[in-house]
């Protein structure tokens, strides 16, 4: 312990004696650790957010789609494109033949749309959702003022629209737009309601920059040839799995799939969406650690270099220490401690920088990032390991020096 404290003191002395050189040498480790901290912060933030945002499906609700969602890896998009579309006939079949299903809410959406009034227009970035009256019950959307459209308006495909808060604010700043008329695709729509604010998806894409119209109207505007996404709610929580089975069986029958063929549609639950994100985040984590390791190796070479220089510069000192009774192990310990401390200091700076970047990111894009404590631990222990790994060779060289030769060194 005493030897360790002495080594610590010596190492600090060396570091403070040459702060600029030490800092430059540590840059590799600083960058590596900062990278891993920032990436982990990003991923952890995303994970928290995704769990919250992707879990938008209401209680005991799942979603039927043609396309797999999220996912990561090599997707054979052509294979999925060949799948049959999900259309209104499927929706009606589910309503009729799946006894465990309570609510069926088909919808489709188109991004990049523009809504206008006589005096104002939005940027062409509004997402238009075509939906049925079941939509608020399965999607978590609720109405802030006005009302949702009723069955008659839905079935007739009338020109009524509910605006997201962002759309309402840009077209009708300061006034309640209910009752006013807006234009979409050159057709008039009457505003019947404004949606409750939902915030942004993953802190980036606003979920309030949207408008909802009856699905039938939507299909008139944008065509019917697009596959629908269908939110399906089980009659009660106990029937959640059974409802999924019924829908799956029905869809397989409708698509005439043999028992050995895989599904040609997707069923998403909150869990499955989260799982596919977790898969993605794992890949990013591994990539982050890879980047970190690479930087740490670069940093390690820096440490190797500075320690070799340090041993060379202090050859005489090492000789004196050995002459006065320092054993090999003691000299080895002195220089190894120095290398580890140097690396650890770099790691600490990296953690600081990483946290700085995370907070900056948080502040700039409003992205709720948080660094998991294990990432700090991992980054610091990896720095330590690198210091030891790359510091041991110079330290061993110092320990092996012959005191007589070493003291002769100028």
């Amino acid at each position: 312990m005493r030897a360790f404290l002495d080594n610590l003191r010596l190492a600090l002395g060396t570091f403070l004696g040459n702060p600029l050189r030490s800092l430059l040498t540590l840059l590799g480790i600083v960058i590596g650790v900062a990278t891993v901290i920032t990436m982990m912060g990003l991923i952890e933030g995303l994970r928290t957010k995704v769990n919250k945002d992707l879990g938008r499906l209401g209680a005991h609700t799942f979603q039927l789609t043609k396309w797999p969602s999220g996912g990561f890896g090599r997707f054979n998009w052509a294979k999925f494109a060949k799948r049959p579309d999900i259309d209104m006939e499927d929706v009606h079949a589910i309503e009729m033949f799946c006894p465990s299903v309570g609510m069926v809410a088909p919808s489709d959406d188109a991004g990049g749309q523009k809504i206008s009034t006589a005096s104002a227009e939005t940027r062409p970035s509004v997402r238009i959702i075509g939906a049925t009256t079941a939509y608020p019950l399965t999607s978590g959307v609720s109405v802030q003022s006005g009302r949702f459209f009723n069955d008659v308006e839905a079935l007739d495909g009338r020109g009524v629209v509910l605006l997201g808060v962002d759309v309402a604010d840009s077209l009708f700043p300061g006034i309640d737009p209910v009752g006013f008329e807006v234009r979409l695709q050159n057709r008039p729509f009457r505003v019947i309601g404004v949606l409750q604010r939902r915030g942004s998806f993953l802190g980036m894409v606003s979920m309030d920059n949207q408008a909802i119209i009856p699905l039938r109207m939507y299909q008139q505007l944008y065509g019917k040839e697009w596959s629908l996404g269908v939110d399906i709610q089980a009659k009660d929580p106990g029937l959640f799995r059974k409802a999924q089975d019924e829908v799956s069986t029905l869809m397989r029958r409708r698509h005439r799939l043999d028992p050995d063929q895989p599904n040609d549609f997707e069923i998403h639950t909150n869990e499955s969406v989260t799982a596919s994100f977790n898969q993605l985040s794992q890949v990013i984590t591994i990539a982050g650690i890879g980047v970190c390791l690479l930087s740490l190796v670069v940093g390690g070479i820096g440490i190797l270099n500075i320690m070799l220089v340090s041993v060379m510069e202090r050859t005489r000192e090492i000789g004196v220490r050995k002459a006065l009774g320092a054993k090999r192990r003691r000299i080895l310990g002195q220089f190894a401690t120095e290398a580890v401390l140097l690396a650890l200091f770099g790691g600490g700076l990296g953690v600081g920088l990483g946290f700085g970047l995370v907070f900056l990111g948080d502040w700039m894009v409003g992205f709720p990032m948080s660094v998991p404590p294990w990432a700090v631990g991992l980054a610091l222990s990896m720095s330590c390991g690198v210091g030891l790994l790359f510091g041991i060779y110079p330290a061993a060289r110092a320990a092996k020096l012959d005191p007589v030769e070493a003291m002769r060194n100028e």
Partner: protein
Amino acid sequence: MSDGSGAGNGRLIQVDDITRVFHVGGEEVRALRGVTFGISRGEWVAIIGQSGSGKSTMMNVLGCLDTPTSGRYMLNGKDVSRMSDDELAVIRNVEIGFIFQTFQLLPKETALANVELPLVYRGMAAKERKERAKAALDKVQLTHRMHHRPNELSGGQRQRVAIARALVSEPSMLLADEPTGNLDSATGEEIVRLFEQLHKAGHTLVLVTHEPKLAARCPRAIRLSDGSIVADGSGREVAMAVAGPMVAGV
């Protein structure tokens, strides 16, 4: 001539038929060719010789910084001629106090920290270390400079710090290599007086030098030439034989 070949019973140092052979570029250099002598506790001995005489090799062997190729070296009752590096490090720490021509102080450390150093490697607690280092600095009258770094001290002061460092571990012997070589004559004289005091206080001193004048001040001198002892007697006699009465300052 005193008895150099004695059996060495009760002697602090007994060197028997020591050789040291170096291999330099495929050539064999015999730096010591069968050297035998003994030094008793409390003696003050100069080892004198010209450059190339083997006195530096002798000093390294005596200081346990090097081991002999053959022969036996008993130090304080222990055979140190076949010890490992780490065992020798312990012997150096406990038995020997080094005083070097170029002082060999650590430039970034204060005088006090420099004096403490041998005790650090003995594993002594910091508080006790400091007290003993202060006491050693007091012996060389440098307590008022103990917080100064070597570059803030004069040559004589530096050598006194080095002597304090040699004294602090209370070694069996003080081993000085050309201790006045880097000092002007007045300061050199000051250091020699300090040695005289240490000798009177009962310390065993071994001085390695090429200066007959310095050897002449020692009660005993051993003269090396070509790796062998050519004279072993009183300092005055050996010095006079080397340089004549004028040069030896006798």
